């Protein structure tokens, strides 16, 4: 028999097994969940070795005699001293190194990520030769109004009392409505994503699995 058939049946049984959760929590669904997690973890281990460590660490150290690579796992191994009360400082040493590196990298990433989005908030609110009135009215004004009202919702330093406070309160209320609409759109996208995954599995069962026998 073609080995592909075994793969097909295994995938079909796993799909149906996982979907038994729709009836109720049960051992079959749990079993396939654990198999999936185990397979992913196993694949990660093999891929990390075969596609990274072997070529970048093991081969240079053993075949090319770059002996100093032996210190890499020694430094990594310092993390495990977290379990020792007496030598825990060794783990903190290497953690500090990693925290510093991560903080530096994040600092470097911050401005290229957010600065262009801040510039993009400054949109022209009058039509001219480049931007038509429709773009200005529909895109720019809507954008700016929503931006200001939502920002005012998150402005907690002034109580919604008095002349200014009441205006701020109205703006914040409008901002809350816009946020609710945005959350609704995000939830709609979530529903769409979940259904896509479901359709993908049903399509596999119908087309690949059953379709294999009844083309």
């Amino acid at each position, binding site marked *: 028999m073609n080995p592909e058939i075994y793969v097909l049946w295994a995938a079909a049984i796993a799909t149906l097994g996982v979907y038994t959760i729709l009836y109720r929590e049960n051992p079959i669904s749990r079993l396939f969940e654990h198999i999936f997690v185990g397979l992913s973890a196993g*694949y990660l281990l093999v891929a990390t070795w075969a596609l*990274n460590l072997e070529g970048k660490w093991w081969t240079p150290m053993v075949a090319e005699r770059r002996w100093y690579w032996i210190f890499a796992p020694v430094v990594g191994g310092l993390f495990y001293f977290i379990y020792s009360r007496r030598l825990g400082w060794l783990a903190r040493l290497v953690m500090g190194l990693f925290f510093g590196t991560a903080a530096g990298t994040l600092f470097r990433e911050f401005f290229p*990520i957010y600065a262009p*989005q801040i*510039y*993009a908030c400054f949109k022209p609110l009058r039509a001219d030769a480049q931007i038509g009135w429709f773009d200005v009215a529909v895109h720019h004004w809507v954008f700016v109004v929503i931006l200001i009202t939502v920002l005012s919702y998150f402005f907690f330093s002034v109580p919604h009392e008095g002349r200014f406070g009441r205006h701020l309160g109205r703006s914040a209320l409008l901002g809350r409505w816009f946020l609710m609409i945005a959350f609704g759109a995000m939830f709609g996208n979530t529903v*769409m994503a979940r259904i896509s995954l*479901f359709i993908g599995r*049903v*399509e596999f069962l119908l087309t690949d699995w059953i379709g294999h026998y009844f083309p």
Partner: protein
Amino acid sequence: MQQTAPTSFWQRLQQIPRYYIYLLLAGVVVWQLIFPIQLPILPSAATQGVHDAIRAVPDDKIIIITTDWDASTQAETGPQTQAVIHACFQARKRFAIMNLQPPMGVKLAHDLAEEAAQDYDVSYGVDWCNWGYKYGYENVLMALGKDIPTTIGDDFYGNPVTDLPMMQGVEDIEDVGLVVEVTGLSGMTEMWIGLIQGPYRTPFASAYTAVMAPLYYPYLDSGQMQGMLVGAKGAAEMEVLTDKPGRATRIMNVQSWAHVLIILLIIVGNLGYLMARGRAGERAP
């Protein structure tokens, strides 16, 4: 919270057992997969942006397709990857697949590229290649910006990338004309934009699962992204642009009908709520 037993028709409408809803949804999905009633798919500006960005890549530069997804989001990210690959092959642009996390994505994308390659006169190493899974997140990207051959080292098959014909002359990120990020993981885009698109001005486009997409619209608006594929819908639109109707077109059609069912169920539930409340108001002294 324990639900009270429904007493009237309108209350029953609010408490339809979930098994019936699952069965109805499964019924609609199976019905549309077997007897499809095709609805039109019109490419959005965001999808058109991805297509245009691929075609705009200069011939002396390569495209990086980074496939940070795995089997759990394959129904959306798989067709997205395949549609992007078709667009690259049609535009005769050389591309390299790579992956930062999870490692399964690089194998799944490799299979899709091999399948798509059968439709064109292309070959591995000349028109496309697979750099494989590279562990190290930001460290990989920072190194990639300065020296691609040393950072990547070996390809998916374990051969040095410097041996591949398409990699001749590819030294650093200046030789990359576009990065297309296909992902089901949030956080990856921030890395690419923060360390590659921002500092080096490398054009960037993306494809996300529909769950993630709303978070990334600001990047599209600010011009940090050239285009974006949103879930199976984006993949289906890309299939229309590449004239290669496939899995996403099938999925999206079924999806549209599933959405109709969900909208109907929401209307029914809310109608039940409003009517039951109205009746309760009438009975109140």
